[in-house]
């Protein structure tokens, strides 16, 4: 089926710290990546995700802590002894070599017989569909072609782990969607442990089995994409993955359970056992908007507010509703003839209880 025979290896990161001089860019990372898993590091720029990836490949400052690949400690090994394949953001194809020479490089460094090198290079170029471009120079290829060559150059050495550093960021939007599907298919076919660094949550969601969200050098949460979206562990994850409304306040006891009082005194009855300073988090698409005089449904959380802005986006109308000093966003499905609220209208927002999350501040 394919010419690449990889043995998937798991990756264990234990208490990994990386500093550039006085700047502590990765703080005590712990992570366990299963063999054959497609794993994403997601985070804003400066979050430490690329530093973590580069540490696995052996680049950057010497980290403290442990990195195990297939159970073998690699943190002390130089990059050339790790056998982890890395595809660079800018592809890093060598401009002075043809495509074939680029792809053959790793095999030559492994001192394979030239006959075998030729066979394997041909096979991998065939696999990425660019065998007929073998004699070209990188500068003569399109971005998508360069990307595939970079991938082929890495895969041909049959690495234990494939590392992808924002590999799609230099492609235009359409190609990006196509390439991420191809990447996922290829990974499934090869069952190769793959770590994918991205700042684009859609890319992480669509490709990965699990992902780690990083911020400020700290792994915030690890899990399957949907799990993180639905059950964020903290405010950063909640707001970084998609749009989230956050109301800050205090959960206090009442006669019939609990009540959330926002900072500026808007009371919202809740069913929760938690007490103390909390943030109330909910997503715009889970909110129903109704006139202030609409009947109150006690099964749902009700928040009173005033429409302060409104954007018609086509399939939805996005309202901004003032709740105390905060503004909650509400996405209302748009249908022809449906009532539309105007700025200044008093409204009630309704939420299913299970769509509301309380998180520590």
């Amino acid at each position, binding site marked *: 089926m394919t010419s690449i025979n990889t043995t998937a290896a798991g990756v264990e990161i234990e208490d990994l710290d990386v500093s550039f001089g006085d700047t502590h860019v990765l703080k005590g990372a712990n992570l366990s990546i299963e063999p054959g898993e497609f794993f994403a590091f997601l985070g804003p720029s400066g979050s430490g995700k690329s530093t973590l990836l580069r540490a696995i490949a052996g680049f950057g400052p010497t980290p403290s802590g442990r990195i195990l690949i297939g159970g073998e400690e690699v943190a002390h090994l130089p990059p050339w002894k790790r056998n982890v394949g890395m595809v660079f953001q*800018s592809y890093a194809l060598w401009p002075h070599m043809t495509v074939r020479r680029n792809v053959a490089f790793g095999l030559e460094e492994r001192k394979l017989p030239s006959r075998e090198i030729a066979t394997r290079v041909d096979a991998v170029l065939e696999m990425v569909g660019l065998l007929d471009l073998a004699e070209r120079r990188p500068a003569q290829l399109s971005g998508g072609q360069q990307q595939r060559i970079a991938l082929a150059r890495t895969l041909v*050495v049959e690495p234990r782990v494939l590392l992808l550093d924002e590999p799609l960021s230099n492609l235009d939007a359409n190609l990006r969607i196509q390439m991420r599907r191809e990447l996922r298919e290829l990974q499934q076919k090869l069952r190769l442990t793959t770590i994918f660094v991205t700042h684009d949550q859609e890319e992480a969601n669509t490709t990965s089995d699990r992902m780690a969200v990083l911020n400020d050098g700290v792994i915030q949460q690890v899990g399957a994409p949907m799990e993180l979206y639905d059950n964020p562990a903290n405010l950063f994850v909640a707001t970084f993955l998609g749009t989230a409304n956050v109301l800050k306040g205090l959960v206090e006891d009442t006669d019939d359970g609990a009540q959330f009082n926002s900072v500026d005194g808007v009371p919202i009855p809740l069913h929760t056992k938690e007490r103390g300073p909390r943030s109330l988090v909910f997503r715009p698409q889970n909110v129903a908007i109704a006139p202030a005089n609409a009947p109150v449904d006690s099964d749902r959380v009700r928040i009173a507010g005033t429409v302060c802005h409104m954007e018609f986006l086509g399939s939805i109308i996005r309202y901004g509703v003032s709740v105390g000093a905060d503004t909650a966003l509400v996405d209302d499905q748009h249908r022809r003839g449906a009532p539309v609220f105007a700025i200044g209208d008093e409204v009630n927002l309704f939420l299913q209880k299970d769509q509301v999350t309380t998180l520590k501040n």
Partner: protein
Amino acid sequence: MGSVFAPGQRGPALAGGLIALFLLLFLLVPMAQVVVVAFQDPNTGAPTLINFVDFFKTSLFQESFINSFYVAAMSVVLSSLFALPLAYFTTRFNFGGALLIQTLGIIPLIMPPFVGAVAMALLFGANGSVNLLLDEWFGFTIPFMEGLNGVIFVESIHYFPFILINLSAALNNIDRAMEESAQNLGASGTRLFRRIVFPLAMPGYVAGAALVFIKVFDDLGTPLLLNINNMLAPQAYLRITSIGISDPMGYVISVILVAFSLLSLWVSLLALRGKDYATLQKGGGGLMRRDLRNWEKIGCYAVVILILLLVLSPHLGLLLLSFGTIWSFSVLPDAYTIDHYVTVFSEASGYITNTLLYAGLAALFDVIIGTGIAYIVWRTGLPGRKWLDYGATAALAVPGVVIGIGYLRTYHGINVPIADQPLASWWVIIVVALTIRRLPYALRACVAALQQVSVMLEEAAENLGATKGRTVWRIVVPLMSGGILAGFVTSFATASVELSATLMLVAVDSDAPLAYGIYEFMQSAAGRGPGAALGVIGVVFVGLGTYISHRIIERGRVTLESTAIVAEGAAA
């Protein structure tokens, strides 16, 4: 891994150590020697300022100091007079400017001033072609070449392109929007020029002027050939060669020369530091240009042609001299012959082969050391790596004559076992001197080349299993090769006509290179023809070299930066 150095750092550490040792032995120690001797009582060896007091009390040295300063300053003035109109015409008007500047820009690079000095005396001297014609037609003469005038004239003609290039670059980098916004706010004409254009172009002018000043201040060959001895560099040379290496005056002069070099480097650094605002917005397209009216065009071309004639006169003169039989008290030589070339190739071919050997070796060492330093500084975390860069660059501040004096002083007593002679008079010391002298420029060319190699290209190789050494060999060096080759060619070309250090270090005539040969021949009237022929050969060497390195750079589509470096490197 048990070693002090991270994996892959032991190789660079070893190379760095060797380079540091080389710089220590052949730059720092000799320079320290020169400084120490200058501040040492010649009899007791105690630290003292007495040598400097003696220096400034001696009228010959006072005069030499004033003369050197005067000549350097006047050369800046005269160079500016040549450069300003050309820079202005080419940046202000739609005028065949770019090509002109390029052509003029290589003039001083392909021929150091001393080579053309004798020819200039024949063209512009009291009985030279121009004055003979002036006298015949108008009944007066101009003392172009009288005494210090000659040095100023020859030096200005050679070095004004430094001002031209720097000033034109500064003018071309000014964003048109700067000018337009000033006009939009109500400024125009001379006010616009004075308040916007001039301040923005000033750093470029100062940098060029500082370079001209120090080139002239340090120059040894030109005054010697024009028989002007009462200047600093010739005095240093004459003291050391006639009185001996124990005479402190040569060292005092060396310290003064180095101090002025540092001063002018500092001035040009100061002028350029933080002043790259002119290039802040790219693609500004330079100042507004306008078409010339017809009479303006005639005026412009007249000025340009006059300057071009002046600039080319040393080359023309040299060519005439090399083919002329007898040329004295006449506008042109009496008759033409190729005898001088025959003489050179039959009797003096040793000069040429020596030059090929010395300049070739020096250029090779330069690019090897340059690549090594560039890699260590920019790609490794070795402690103290920056000092290699500073050390190699420090050679910029050391005039050739000072290097020569330093080597003579430091190595006259150290015997080389295989050659069985003192290191200071072994031919290899000439190669070392040339290597040190050209190193700063070769280094910058190598750094520029390395900076164009993305670190990711190296990481990709390491990721695929190549060690640091293999990565350097298979990725870094091939990708740098254009820049390295350009650096090699420039170093070779300019080392082959380097005179000042060579003049002091040549021990026997059979070891002498081309520049020394030109100097030797030019000493006697009979030797001028062959000397000029040798000069023409030198110019062809350097011209070819410069052309080749430009071609390499264009082919490699290397950035402007390294082109500028090559131009600058070729100049020194």
